[in-house]
């Protein structure tokens, strides 16, 4: 059974239609990440699930109940915001108990739940402080705590880590993952534009662009088998290399041809029947390009070298285009050096040049 189900939802802002019949099913206990560039509609979708935004058409189901017309508080959800959204004139304890007070929960019960959530998030010593006396990380912890006390079946996160610095972001990311494991059957829907958050946290990632879902899949699928050029380019850093070319059917089977470079595609798992002569785009992740003297593509020269510690990214160019190669961190190269690259045909992705869809 799915906990959250978005069925053919259309959201309209005055004259502008944001979604046109968007559907999404989320399983119980699942960690779903909505990933996309700003303006892709991921936050709008989250707000629609939360009930902070009216849908024009379609239904939203949470826990087997049609909540399309329900108030946010009656949907069995909790939400964490990017700007923390802590009530500035209340201390941490009051912030966390506000929702329960509104729901007329008995006092001992409120205290019990606040104490439990505070302990889980290690914010017990902060309970009597006001939000302006907390650091960014502490504030977000409190905001998560405030969501936690609601005992909701579904947690909604709206870019919760975007206001934090890199170190805190990593810490809290791990903590959110741990929290999800600990809570067990709690469903989490998490909006972000950060692909690392998406890859590390998600059971399934929903990649969105221009108000449309591009691909739904596990981080593995998204990364290794992107459904189209957009997903391939959006996920992964450094970016996937794209090489324009076409198919050619030689005697030994189908191969990819770009200029005088050739790649035999005998091991490639096609999902659509390719036709000879079709214009295609070859996508190769930088880590799937290998610098090797026996490689199949000679004639590259080193352009720029970016040492990143754990690995080194080498930009190679062959006069027409440039590709990025990710090698081990100890590898060094000097600009101008010539290189021969090797490509493993089972690791590449092929996209139709016209539609951008995966072949």
């Amino acid at each position, binding site marked *: 059974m799915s906990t959250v189900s978005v069925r053919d939802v259309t959201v309209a802002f005055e004259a502008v239609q944001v979604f046109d019949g968007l559907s999404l099913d989320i399983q119980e206990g699942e960690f779903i990440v909505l990933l996309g560039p700003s303006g892709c509609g991921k936050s709008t979708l989250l*707000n629609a699930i*939360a009930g*902070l935004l009216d849908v024009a058409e379609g239904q939203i189901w949470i826990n087997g109940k049609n909540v399309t017309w329900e*108030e*946010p*508080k009656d949907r069995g*959800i*909790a*939400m964490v*915001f*990017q*700007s923390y*959204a*802590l*009530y*500035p*004139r209340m201390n941490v304890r009051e912030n966390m108990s*506000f*929702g329960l007070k*509104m*729901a007329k929960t008995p006092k001992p019960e409120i205290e019990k739940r606040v104490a439990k959530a505070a302990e889980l998030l290690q914010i017990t010593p902060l309970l009597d402080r006001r939000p302006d006396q907390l650091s960014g990380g502490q504030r977000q912890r409190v905001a998560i705590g*405030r969501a936690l006390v*609601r005992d909701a079946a579904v947690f909604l996160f*709206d870019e919760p880590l975007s206001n934090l610095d890199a170190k805190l972001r990593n810490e809290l990311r791990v903590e959110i993952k741990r929290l999800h494991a600990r809570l067990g059957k709690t469903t989490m829907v998490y909006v972000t534009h950060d692909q690392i958050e998406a890859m590390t946290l998600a059971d399934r990632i929903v990649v969105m662009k221009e108000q449309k879902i591009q691909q739904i899949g596990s981080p593995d699928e998204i990364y290794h088998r992107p459904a189209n050029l957009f997903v391939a380019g959006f996920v992964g850093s450094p970016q996937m290399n794209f090489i324009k070319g076409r198919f050619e059917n030689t005697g030994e089977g189908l191969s990819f041809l770009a200029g005088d470079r050739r790649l035999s595609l005998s091991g490639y798992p096609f999902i659509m029947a390719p036709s000879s002569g079709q214009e295609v785009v070859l996508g190769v992740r930088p880590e799937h390009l290998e610098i090797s003297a026996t490689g199949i593509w000679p004639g590259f020269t080193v352009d720029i070298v970016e040492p990143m510690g754990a690995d080194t990214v080498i930009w190679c160019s062959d006069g027409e285009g440039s590709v990025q190669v990710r090698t081990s961190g100890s590898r060094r190269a000097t600009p101008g050096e010539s290189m021969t690259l090797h490509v493993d045909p089972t690791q590449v992705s092929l996209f139709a040049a016209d539609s951008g869809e995966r072949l």
Partner: protein
Amino acid sequence: MSAAVPQGRRPRHLTIGRIGIYAFLVTAALFFMLPLWIMVVTSLKPMEEIRLGNILALPAAMTFEAWTKAWSSACTGLECNGISVGFWNSVRILIPSVILSIMAGAINGYALSFWRVKGANVMFGVLLLGAFIPYQVFLYPLVRIFSLTGIYNSLTCIVLVHVIFGLPTMTLLFRNYYAGLPIELFKAARIDGGGFWSIFFRVILPMSTPILVVATILQVTGIWNDFIFGLTFAGRENLPMTVQLNNIVNSTQGERAYNVDMAATMLAALVPLVVYFVSGRWFVRGIAAGAVKG
């Protein structure tokens, strides 16, 4: 030591330009201080001294007689109870008017910026348009309406008028302030189960202190200085201080008591003056808050 090595703070030199600026500022300050100075010294002089005509001179024999007379025994038409009657009338008008108009503006602004009522922008536009129509246009229709409903010439009537006419500015002020608060706070409160009133009183109002101060300043000075509404709607019993001041200054029986007039005027101006002096910083902020964002 010869020429100084450039280090630390750069030395400032008094240039001709600077001197010009200071001269202008001092002149301007003197110009605006002058009326106040004349009022204060005149109010402290006995009439004999005023007749000499040295209006700028300090009083030779300082006396507070004019002030006591202005407060408690100056004649406003037929009655001679001083301006104190008007003072307390003004206070009685001021307190409910200020509180009610600010509350109305705050609730309006809150509803407009957070609840996104259908047609909110149109309503807001109409409200603002109302602020630009000259008051005189409203006077006669309002008098007719109030006498039909039977509250004309009463405290209720004048308070109601102040609340109505304060609404556009107060709404604009609060709407703009609330537009600057993060909408996520409101969303969080909605998820926590707050309704229209509970979010307003528990979350939004506690965050409104700065704008409440600004609104209070604007309304206190505005309502205290009002003349035309008080004269038209308050009725004989509740005439505010400004109207009584006019009566004192304009009642010409025998010699004109300049010192009493000055003292009465100072007394009438006291409340706004105190407000300005105490709250200069906030006042500027209030003007800016109303002007920058539309």
